[in-house]
C-alpha cells in the first residue's frame, strides 16, 4: 500500500526514535511511505495561536504536494501535525471562501482530496488488528501498559471522526493484539501541556505530573504514546516532576511503534529505544523482551 508520509519536524528531531520506529513498522506491514517532497512545518501551536490564515496555508501547501504525488492518503504520526493537517483539510472542504483565499496564497488549487490519518486511525482502519496480531512473533506478555492518547489523536471529534474523544480504546486494542495488558486509567485523553514545553514549563510540569501520577496509581509499568509532544514532555520532564513532588515514577515513555517493532521481532537498537531518557531496558529485560 502506498501512502504519503508527513514526518514533521519532531520526527526528525526531538522524537527521532518515533520516526525510526514508524519506518521500521510500516515497512514490515508492507506500507510504502512516500515522504511529502520538500514538506514544510505544519505551523504547530505558534501559527494557530497567532495567524489563522497562515496555519491553514502552511498545511495546504503540504496537502497540495501530496495530491500532486497522486496520493489519496496522508499519514501524519505526530498528533500535532495531524491535527493541523486534518483541521486544514476540514476547513478547506467546508469553507469555500477560505479555500479560494488559501488557493490564492499557495498559488495552487485548494487541496481537498487527500485524507489525513494519524497512526492509530491508520492501523485500525487500513491495517486492522488481525494484521498486527498475525505479525506478532514476540508477544508483549506480562507488560501492564497505560495507553496514552492525549488531546489531538481523537479531538475535536467533528474533525477527527475517529474513536471516542474522551474514552478512546484503539491503542489499548492494538497493544492487546500484541499480547500486552492495558490498565484502566483516568488520564488517557487528558493534556500533557503540549506546546508549552519550553515557553511556560510550569504548565507542563503540572499537567504531565497529573498524567504520570494517574498512570502510576493505575499500576502501569510504562506509558505508551503516539505523539512526540506527549512523549517528550512525559519523558524529559519526568525527573523534574518527581523532584518537585518528592516522588519516584521511573515510568518509561515508549512510542507505540517501538513496542510494535519489538513484537514483530526487531531489536531495541533498530527501534531507537536507547534514545529514550527514562530507560525502558530494566522493564523489557524483566519480561524477556530485550
Amino acid at each position, binding site marked *: 500500500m502506498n501512502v504519503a508520509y508527513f514526518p514533521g519536524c519532531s520526527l526528525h528531531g526531538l522524537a527521532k526514535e518515533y520516526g525510526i520506529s514508524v519506518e521500521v513498522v510500516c515497512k514490515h506491514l508492507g506500507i510504502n511511505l512516500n515522504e511529502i517532497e*520538500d514538506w514544510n512545518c505544519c505551523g504547530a501551536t505558534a501559527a494557530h495561536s497567532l495567524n*489563522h490564515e497562515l496555519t491553514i496555508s502552511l498545511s495546504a501547501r503540504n496537502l497540495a504536494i501530496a495530491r500532486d504525488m497522486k496520493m489519496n492518503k496522508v499519514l501524519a504520526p505526530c498528533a500535532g501535525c495531524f491535527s493541523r493537517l486534518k483541521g486544514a483539510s476540514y476547513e478547506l472542504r467546508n469553507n469555500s471562501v477560505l479555500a479560494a483565499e488559501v488557493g490564492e496564497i499557495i498559488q495552487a488549487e485548494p487541496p481537498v482530496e487527500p485524507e489525513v490519518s494519524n497512526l492509530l486511525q491508520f492501523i485500525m482502519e487500513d491495517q486492522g488488528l488481525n494484521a498486527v496480531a498475525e505479525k506478532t512473533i514476540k508477544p508483549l506478555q506480562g507488560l501492564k501498559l497505560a495507553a496514552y492518547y492525549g488531546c489531538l489523536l481523537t479531538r475535536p471529534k467533528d474533525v477527527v471522526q475517529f474513536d471516542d474523544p474522551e474514552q478512546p480504546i484503539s491503542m489499548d486494542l492494538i497493544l492487546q493484539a500484541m499480547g500486552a495488558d492495558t490498565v484502566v486509567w483516568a488520564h488517557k485523553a487528558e493534556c500533557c501541556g503540549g506546546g508549552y514545553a519550553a515557553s511556560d514549563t510550569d504548565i507542563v510540569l503540572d499537567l504531565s505530573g497529573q498524567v504520570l501520577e494517574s498512570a502510576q496509581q493505575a499500576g502501569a509499568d510504562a506509558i505508551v504514546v503516539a505523539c512526540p509532544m506527549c512523549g517528550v514532555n512525559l519523558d524529559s520532564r519526568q525527573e523534574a516532576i518527581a523532584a518537585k513532588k518528592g516522588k519516584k515514577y521511573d515510568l518509561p515513555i515508549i512510542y507505540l511503534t517501538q513496542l510494535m517493532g519489538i513484537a514483530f521481532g526487531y531489536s531495541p537498537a533498530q527501534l531507537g529505544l536507547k534514545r529514550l531518557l527514562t530507560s525502558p531496558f530494566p522493564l523489557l529485560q524483566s519480561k524477556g523482551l530485550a
Partner: protein
Amino acid sequence: MHNTADFYHVLRIDQTSNSLREEIKEHCHTDIEMCLECGKCSGGCSNAHIFDITPRKIIQLIKIGEEAKLLKMDALWSCVACQLCVDRCPSSINIPKIMDYMREKAYKQCVPATRPNVELFHELMLGSIKQYGRVAEALMTVQFNIKSKQYTKDAEMGIKMFFKGKLNPLPSRIKNVQQVRRMFRNIPAQREG
C-alpha cells in the same frame, strides 16, 4: 484572582450586546446564542484551575460585549487547546476557535501578552518557519533562552538530548523556502501601532 462579581450574574436583555457576538459568529462559525449555560466547558477545561477567566465566563463576557477584558485575559496565553470544551459542549460552541480568534486580535492590536515568553516562543517559531520552512529546534531554544533572559534554562536537558541524538545543531532548510516566505508576505501578521 480575577474579580468575577461584575459579570457573573443573570443577564437581562439590556445588558447584552450584539456586536462581538456577531463578529464571533462570522469569523469563528460558532454561535454563542446556542449556549445552554451548563458549564460543561469549564468542568472539562484542562487549565481551568489556573485560568483568570474560565470558558463559561468567557461566553458570558462575549454576551455583554466586554471585548477589552477578553483581549487582555491570561487564559489566552495559558489555554492548551486540548479541545475538551468544544467536544463536551452540547451545542458544539467552538471555544478553542474563539480563543485563537481573540488571541490573534489581541496580538494584532499589540495588547501586552500576560505571558510574554509564550508570545515570544510563538514568534520565534514562526520566524524559524519563515527562514527555513521548518522548525530548527536547537537554534530556536537558544534564541528563546537569550531573548527571555533565561540563559541556563534546560541546558542540562539539552545536553542530554544532544547526546541521545535528538538535537540537530544545524537547521535544515527546505528547497522551496521562497514559496513558504511568500505565504508570510501574503498574510502579514500586521501589528498596529
